[in-house]
């Protein structure tokens, strides 16, 4: 895959429904300067910038990249914007890693931003990502389309609302340990089950919030990485898989997402994820998605999903903790969300997780998914395997 690449620094803003206290460039500046500080770098040490932002109507400003570029340390440097819906942050990270792997750049910054709080109802805007002639008449949005994938998955994988509630409780508990997390509330299974029905099978507490926030990650070549970071997070595997744009065409198979993960596993020398991966930072804005990923990412067989949830497999003290950060269910600044997965994965490898740190981490998987159709089979799927040692 060209030259070795490692993550040497990360920076995040606090995620909230609306950051009244910051303009969009303010958030980009904060995430960027924290990442530079974390890596011990100055603005002149960054060679190029990859900027991630999802649909503009969420923020209400066209081409906000031009407004934010210089807050991302881009003045006088190459800059490009990437947009693959919810996978935006994953694609931005992969693009930054490609830049370094190519040998043309030594230190590249990926920064991603979303201000979902500027508009009262993001789902109305997300209805407009569907085909205006064939699909948007039917009130589709992200919540109800993912809910449709979930009803199908419940049939195939035999999990229930109770299992979904277990995932939600676990993620909310984890978020209490993450100072950047948006939702920081302790909830019970009963709270989830009794929360208002949004789109069957999702109750309110099965769903992610919408957040304002930005995240930045510094990627460096081997020579620089060894100098800059006491423990660099090595990118041992990465993959992006694109699937059809016609909604519902793939139903809700776990195909493309699992394909991206297995491609990244292969690059990283992972043959048995259950044994070789210690943490997963998965892109799962809804409780059911994480259950589906247990199977899709190779941690169990289809008939074992419910049992795995009941065993506490993905809890902080479980066999393979899923989203120690609280995950997408507790913070979702859309275009930045998949980059946060990668930042949090790097934090685990670099042992900077403080209260959310998992001991003895060798390999972490981070995923991203975006652009709709079904649950784990989105239009755009990304996966990245970070390791303590270069593969």
């Amino acid at each position: 895959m060209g030259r070795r690449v490692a993550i040497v620094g990360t920076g995040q803003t606090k995620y909230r429904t609306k950051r009244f206290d910051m303009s969009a460039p303010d958030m980009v500046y904060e995430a960027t300067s924290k990442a530079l500080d974390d890596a011990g770098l100055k603005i002149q040490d960054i060679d190029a910038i990859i900027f991630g932002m999802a649909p503009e109507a969420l923020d209400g400003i066209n081409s906000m990249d031009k407004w934010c570029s210089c807050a991302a340390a881009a003045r006088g440097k190459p800059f490009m914007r990437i947009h693959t819906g919810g996978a935006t942050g994953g694609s931005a990270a992969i693009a930054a890693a490609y830049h370094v792997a190519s040998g043309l750049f030594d230190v590249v910054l990926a920064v991603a931003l979303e201000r979902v709080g500027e508009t009262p109802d993001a789902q109305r805007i997300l209805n407009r990502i569907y085909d205006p002639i064939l699909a948007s008449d039917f009130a589709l949005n992200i919540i109800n389309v993912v809910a449709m994938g979930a009803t199908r998955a419940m049939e195939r994988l035999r999990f229930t609302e109770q299992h979904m509630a277990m995932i939600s409780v676990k993620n909310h508990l984890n978020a209490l340990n993450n100072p950047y997390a948006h939702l920081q509330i302790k909830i019970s299974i009963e709270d989830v089950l009794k929360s208002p029905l949004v789109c069957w099978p999702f109750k309110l507490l099965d769903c992610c919030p919408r957040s304002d926030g930005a995240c930045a990650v510094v990627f460096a070549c081997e020579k620089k990485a060894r100098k800059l970071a006491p423990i660099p997070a090595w990118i041992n595997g990465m993959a992006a898989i694109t699937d059809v744009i016609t909604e519902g065409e793939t139903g809700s198979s776990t195909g493309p997402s699992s394909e991206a993960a297995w491609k990244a596993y292969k690059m990283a020398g992972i043959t048995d994820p259950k044994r070789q991966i210690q943490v997963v930072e998965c892109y799962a804005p809804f409780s059911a998605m994480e259950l589906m990923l247990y199977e899709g990412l190779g941690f169990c067989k289809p008939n074992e999903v419910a049992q795995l949830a009941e065993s506490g497999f993905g809890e902080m003290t479980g066999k393979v903790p899923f989203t120690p950060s609280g995950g997408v269910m507790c913070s979702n600044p859309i275009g930045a969300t998949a980059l946060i997965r990668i930042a949090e994965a790097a934090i685990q490898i670099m042992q900077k997780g403080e209260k959310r740190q998992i001991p003895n981490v060798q390999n972490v998987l981070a995923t991203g998914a975006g652009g709709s159709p079904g649950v784990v089979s989105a239009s755009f799927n990304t996966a990245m395997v970070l390791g303590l040692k270069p593969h």
Partner: protein
Amino acid sequence: MANKNELLSVPGQWNMSYNYSAGETLSKFLIELRDNARIMATKCTQCNRVILPARSYCERCFIPIKDNWVELPARGTLEAFTLVNIKFEGLPDPPYVIAYIKLEGADTTIPHFLTGIDLTDIQKARNTIKVGMPVRLIFKSREQREGRMTDFIVEPDS
């Protein structure tokens, strides 16, 4: 300096008009719905997948398929569904059911509202809808059809 606890914001609104072009293949498909109440799909001459709504190319074999039309029956199965129970701004008033439908003979699915379900008791309603249940398409009258996916409704086929 001014009171630094005061934070300002400026209102804005996006309200722009568009006309979305269907193109040749999709126009033919929509006109068949409107004029003849027929569901026409395109079939790939290489992989034999039947694509609905009709598309001019097969994205897997990467060949044009715009001249290979097949007619599908007005019945199929429900592949996935959700029962929407909250109001989203600019979207219909709840409750309503959205489903992905696979027509008999098609290899792809289409989204649509599922009608003909009693939604007075939400808990009861959600148990009457099953993944895999048969559904049928019922075309509106010729006067009501306008060359859109809403020219027909979808309901359980009991």
